[in-house]
């Protein structure tokens, strides 16, 4: 039987649909007690990953474990994990209550549970209506009600906010947080960081079927250093002065200003004053999380030197779509961004990731947010090879 830990472990998951690699060597761990966001652009392989975890899709390689077990060894799985995978999955002619009573019977919970979950998701008055007449938002609620029937320890939701009205989204947010706070595990996927930003404590960011980052959202926020844009009277003198102070992360911005990363505006101004350089304008730029997400999921934005990027990559926002399969092959040229200061959180480029641990931040800042389970991802062993498929290194904590 399963270990009751509430932990989700994904190890080296790979799925090949014919010539298309939907998911490539994906690894991450989701701990109980927090809401984990599973983020990535459309076509990043989120749904396929969740379906592999739930035993609906057979992985080409790797394993997905819930409570230390593959889905099919959970016994009565719906009592361990509930899933909202799509706002479909209802017989159009079956009433909402009947739908729930069917699956209540399957998982062996009393029929009254159907009415309880209907009330819980706010469909109490619609129980006798046929699911075919439901709006998208109501279907989402019914899907959630189905997932909650077995009072599961682990809740997996794929884009649950689709079709929900703002009130519904606010409710869902609060619901998921309280669910996690009761010591359970919540994994919620989304292609919009903004949608889940206020809900999640931890994030797993994937792009092109690979893990780009996983860890606390706060670490991601902190990793995004602010930069100061300065318009000095004498650029050369200011750069020299800053370098003398040990500040080297200086860039020339196209508009003639210089951008200083990792310092506060005050420090730049003080240095300029000491060096006798006038400042005509100074501005602190705090890149927002959404922009960071965009960078993580779009290779070309992560690399400051755009020229370093292979020419096949079309420009603009095209990175939002799954790239052609050829892109995911090993041997993908490494990009410049790993040299950037503070970018240690980013996963190395794909060619690099074969068998290496992914997204393990070297040196987690001490400000790990409350709610992070003890030994959260710090537990992830950094040495390469440890995350090879088939290794049972994760279950050890249970």
């Amino acid at each position, binding site marked *: 039987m399963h270990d009751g830990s509430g932990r989700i472990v994904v190890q080296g998951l790979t799925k090949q649909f014919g010539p298309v690699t939907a998911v490539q060597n994906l690894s991450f761990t989701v701990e109980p007690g927090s809401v984990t966001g599973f983020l990535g652009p459309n076509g990043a392989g989120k749904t396929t990953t969740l379906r592999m975890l739930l035993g609906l899709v057979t992985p080409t390689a790797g394993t997905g474990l819930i409570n230390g077990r593959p889905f099919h060894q959970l016994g009565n799985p719906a009592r361990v994990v509930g899933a909202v995978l799509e706002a479909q999955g209802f017989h159009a002619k079956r009433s909402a209550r009947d739908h729930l009573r069917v*699956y209540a019977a399957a998982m062996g919970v009393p029929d009254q549970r159907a009415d309880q979950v209907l009330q819980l998701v706010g469909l109490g008055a619609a129980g006798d209506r046929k699911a075919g007449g439901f709006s998208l938002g109501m279907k989402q609620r019914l899907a959630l009600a189905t997932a909650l029937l077995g009072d599961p320890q682990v809740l997996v939701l794929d884009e649950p906010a689709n079709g929900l009205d703002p009130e519904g989204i606010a409710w869902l947010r609060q619901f998921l947080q309280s669910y996690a706070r009761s010591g359970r595990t919540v994994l919620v996927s989304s292609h919009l960081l903004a949608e889940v930003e206020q809900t999640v404590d931890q994030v797993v960011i994937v792009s092109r079927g690979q893990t780009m980052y996983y860890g606390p959202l706060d670490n991601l926020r902190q990793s995004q250093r602010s930069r100061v844009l300065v318009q000095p009277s004498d650029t050369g003198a200011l750069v020299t002065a800053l370098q003398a102070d040990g500040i080297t992360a200086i860039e020339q911005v196209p508009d003639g200003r210089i951008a200083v990363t990792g310092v506060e505006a005050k420090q730049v101004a003080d240095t300029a004053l000491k060096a006798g350089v006038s400042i005509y304008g100074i501005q602190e730029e705090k890149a927002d999380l959404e922009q960071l997400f965009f960078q993580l999921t779009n290779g070309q934005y992560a690399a400051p030197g755009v020229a370093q990027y292979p020419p096949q990559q079309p420009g603009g926002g095209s990175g939002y779509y799954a790239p052609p399969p050829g892109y995911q092959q090993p041997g993908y040229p490494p990009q410049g961004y790993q040299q950037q200061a503070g970018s240690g959180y980013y996963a190395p480029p794909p060619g690099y990731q074969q068998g290496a641990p992914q997204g393990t931040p070297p040196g987690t800042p001490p400000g790990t947010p409350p709610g992070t389970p003890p030994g959260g991802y710090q537990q992830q062993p950094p040495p390469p090879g440890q995350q090879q498929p088939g290794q049972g290194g994760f279950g050890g904590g249970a």
Partner: protein
Amino acid sequence: MTEQMNYQTGPAGPAPQYRQPSMLGNLVKAEFRKTTTTGLWWGLMIPTVLIALGWALATGAIGKGLMDVVTSEDAEQLTDLIGISPDQWQVSLFGMARSINVATIFPMIFGGMAISNEIRHRTITTTFLTAPTRVAALGAKMLVYVAWGAIYGLAIVAAVSIGIAITSDVDALPSAGGWLAMAGVGVLSSILMTMFGVGVGALMTSVVGTTVVLLLYMLIIENGLQLVLSTQGLPELIGFLPNGAVNGLTGSVASSLFLSTAGVVPTELEDVLRAIAGALGAFDWWLSGLIFLVWTGLFFLGGWAATQRRDIT
């Protein structure tokens, strides 16, 4: 949250050997609810009963008309001459066999919906998420559809019996034992037809495709094949075809029962009688049943294997 505590101490729960049968019971209950919470079962039950009744009434009337001719004063001399006594003929047996064969088309369609409808409505996702394994989910479904095949079979036998009794002469009706035998093979063929449908539906995965293929094959394609085979002098092959085999199940019983009570019947006439019963080229009822069971098993296991391995995306 006390409930939650139970899960977290879950490993100490009931032992696996206790859990297994109750799990299957749960799944059977769930599958049965699936069939009773939509209108499909009665939507198909109405035409089933109407067709069974209608065919039984018609075939009973035809049989009666035939017997009126055969037993008339004019024909008596002829029948005496060739040494047969038609007043013993239980012609209604043929009507029963034919009516049962036609009506079992509907439980077959009902079976065809079992898995294809779940795939169409994407309820298969939740079905697999709420079952320990796909084997368990499909096993429960199989049990439920066996039961539904029997329910349809009983309804068919009842409707056919009523229809035949209304239009046939009392003399032309089977004995109690004969009726029981017909009822038995009627229910059996309904169950097998249902399972055949389940298998085809699981392989095809499309509701419309399954229905069209099943109807086309059973009503048109195989009849064409049978016609070709019998004109090519190979009628014995008909018994190996799915429809020929399942028809043989009821048809063979009907003709055996008929012959056992009909007195002297010339051998040349036996093939004609089997053809009337819809069992031309068919084997004994049990062999026909076995052959159709093989067909059913082939499609059912094929559909099962496909569903077992399919990626639910």
